C-alpha cells in the first residue's frame, strides 16, 4: 500500500477496463514522473470529454454536437443503414472506406445475463428511422459471437415484415491468413457461406 493520494490514483486507474493492479501502479508512477504540462492536458481532456461529448440524436454515435459528423454529411447514401453494437464499431467500418451509407449504434447486444434486452438497446429508435421508407437496405454488423448473433436474429425477425433488404456481414476466413491456421468454427462458417465465382 502506498500513502493516501498515490494509492487513490492506483485504485482509480485499476477500475479502468483492461488495467490490472500491476499496470495501474505502472501508469500511476509514470504520471508522477511525467511533465506537469502533460498531466494537466490529460486531466483537462478527461473533464471536458464528459461535458462536451454527447450522443448523436439520430444514430447514437459519439458526437460533439447534436448530430454526429456522419449523419450531418449530405454526401452519405441515405438508402443504406449499417447497424452496429458500439461507437467503436463505426470507426472500424469507416476505416474500410467501403461503406458510404449511415449507421445506427445499438449500444450493446442482447444478453439476458447482463440484463440487456431490446428495451435497453436503441431498437425503438431504429424502427422510427426506418418508418419513412428512405432506407432500402439494412446491414446487420453486430459481433459474430453468441450475443451478437442473437441480436442479429432478433432484428431480422423485426425487420423482415417491413419489406426492405436485410443483410448480415459474412463470416469466414481472414484475408492474408493461412487456411491451415483457421479454427474449425471459422472454417465451417466459411464453407456454409461459400459463393459461386462465375458471376
Amino acid at each position: 500500500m502506498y500513502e493516501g493520494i498515490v494509492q487513490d490514483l492506483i485504485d482509480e486507474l485499476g477500475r479502468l477496463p483492461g488495467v490490472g493492479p500491476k499496470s495501474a501502479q505502472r501508469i500511476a508512477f509514470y504520471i508522477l514522473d511525467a511533465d506537469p504540462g502533460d498531466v494537466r492536458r490529460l486531466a483537462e481532456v478527461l473533464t471536458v470529454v464528459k461535458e462536451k461529448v454527447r450522443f448523436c440524436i439520430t444514430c447514437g454515435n459519439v458526437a460533439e454536437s447534436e448530430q454526429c459528423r456522419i449523419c450531418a454529411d449530405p454526401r452519405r447514401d441515405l438508402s443504406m443503414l449499417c447497424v452496429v453494437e458500439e461507437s467503436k464499431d463505426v470507426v472500424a467500418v469507416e476505416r474500410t472506406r467501403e461503406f458510404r451509407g449511415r449507421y445506427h449504434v445499438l449500444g450493446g447486444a442482447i444478453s439476458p445475463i447482463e440484463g440487456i434486452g431490446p428495451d435497453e438497446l436503441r431498437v425503438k429508435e431504429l424502427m422510427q428511422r426506418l418508418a419513412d421508407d428512405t432506407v432500402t437496405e439494412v446491414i446487420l454488423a453486430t459481433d459474430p459471437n453468441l450475443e451478437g448473433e442473437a441480436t442479429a436474429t432478433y432484428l431480422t425477425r423485426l425487420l423482415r415484415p417491413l419489406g426492405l433488404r436485410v443483410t448480415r456481414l459474412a463470416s469466414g476466413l481472414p484475408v492474408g491468413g493461412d487456411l491451415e491456421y483457421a479454427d474449425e468454427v471459422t472454417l465451417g462458417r466459411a464453407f456454409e457461406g461459400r459463393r459461386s465465382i462465375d458471376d
Partner: protein
Amino acid sequence: MHVTHLSLHDFRSYEQVDVPLSAGTTAFIGANGHGKTNLVEAIDYLATLGSHRVASDAPLVRAGASQAVIRASVVRDERSALLEVEINPGKANRARVNRSQLPRARDVLGWMRAVLFSPEDLALVKRDPSDRRGFLDKLLVLRSPRFAGVKADYDRILRQRNTLLKTAGFARRGTSGDAAVATLDVWDEHLAHTGAELLAARLQLVDALQPYLGTAYARVAADATADRTSAAVTYKPSFELAEAVRDRTVLSEALSAEIARRRKDELDRGISLVGPHRDDLTLTLGELPAKGYASHGESWSFALALRLASYDLLRADGDDPVLILDDVFAELDRGRRDQLAAIVGTAEQVLVTAAVAEDVPDRLTGQRFDVHDAQVTSV
C-alpha cells in the same frame, strides 16, 4: 501414442515432481493418500481439461500455491510434442504446445488422448444422468475436439435462455413481460440450432460405440449367465424422437417444435426443459435396465465395458490412447482381473495405480515406481 515424461508443479500434493515414462506398462505403487492418483489424474487432465474426481479446478492446485502446471512430453506417430497446461483457478487457464502459446486453453484438446478407468466409473451405471452425459461429451471431445467449442456455446446459450425465462416468468406474473418473451424466440432458435449439432454428434457417437460395448462386456463378464451377457446402450432424448433421425436439420426442427410446445411449462418453472442438457443414456443388460437391476459386480463390469469400448473406438480412429487404470484391480474379483489384464496387455501404454503390488496382475509387468509422501522413486 505414449507419454515419455511427466512433470508437475504445485499440482495436488506435488510441489515439484518429474517422472520419466515409456511405452508398455508402468505401475505406481503406494499407500492411500500418498499421491498415486494425482499423477494419472494430471495426464487425464491434459486429455480432457477436467478431473475425474472434482468438478472445479481449485482442488487441483497445491494448498497455498496460486497456480499448478502440468507438463508432458508425448510421442505420437513417432513425433514428439511438449504439452503444458497452466491451471489458474478463477482465471483463464493457459496452454502451450512445443513452447508456443495457444489462443485458448481448450485448443490443447486433441493433442493428448487418454482413457481413464477408476472406481468413480461406477457412477456411470448407478448415479445420475449428468454422469452419463459427461461421459459421452468427454468421449465426443476426445474424438473431435471441435465439440468442446460447440458444448461451450450450447452451455452459454442455455445460461442466457434460463436467465431470460426466469425474468420473463416473474414479469408475466407481475406487470408486463412482453419484451422478454419477444427475445425468447431468438434464444429458442439458437438453442435448437446448436442443440441439434450436439444432439446429432451424440447420437452418432452412441451408434459407433454400440458394437464395441457388446464385445467388451462379453469379454469382461465371461462368467455371466446366458440371458445377461448382452449389454447395450441407447440414447434417450428429453422428448419423443423418431429413432433413426441423425440429420441436423431434422433434429433442429424437432427441437424447435418441442420447445414451442413446452413454452408455458418453461415460463412457469423458469428453466429450459428441452434439449441435450436433459438427455440420458439407457444402459441395458439382457432385457432389463442396468440401473436398479444389475448387481454390484455386474454394474462394475458394465462400467469397465463402457471404458473399454471407448478405448477400442478411439483406437479404431487410428491412434492408441494412453490407457490409465486407477485403483481398479483392487475392486475386481480374480476372473475379471485377469480378463482386464489380458485385454489391456496389447495397449501401447498402460499406467496402473495400486495400493499394494499384489493387486497388479502378473502379466502386466514393466516399469514400477513407488509413491511415498509425494515422492516418486523408480524400483
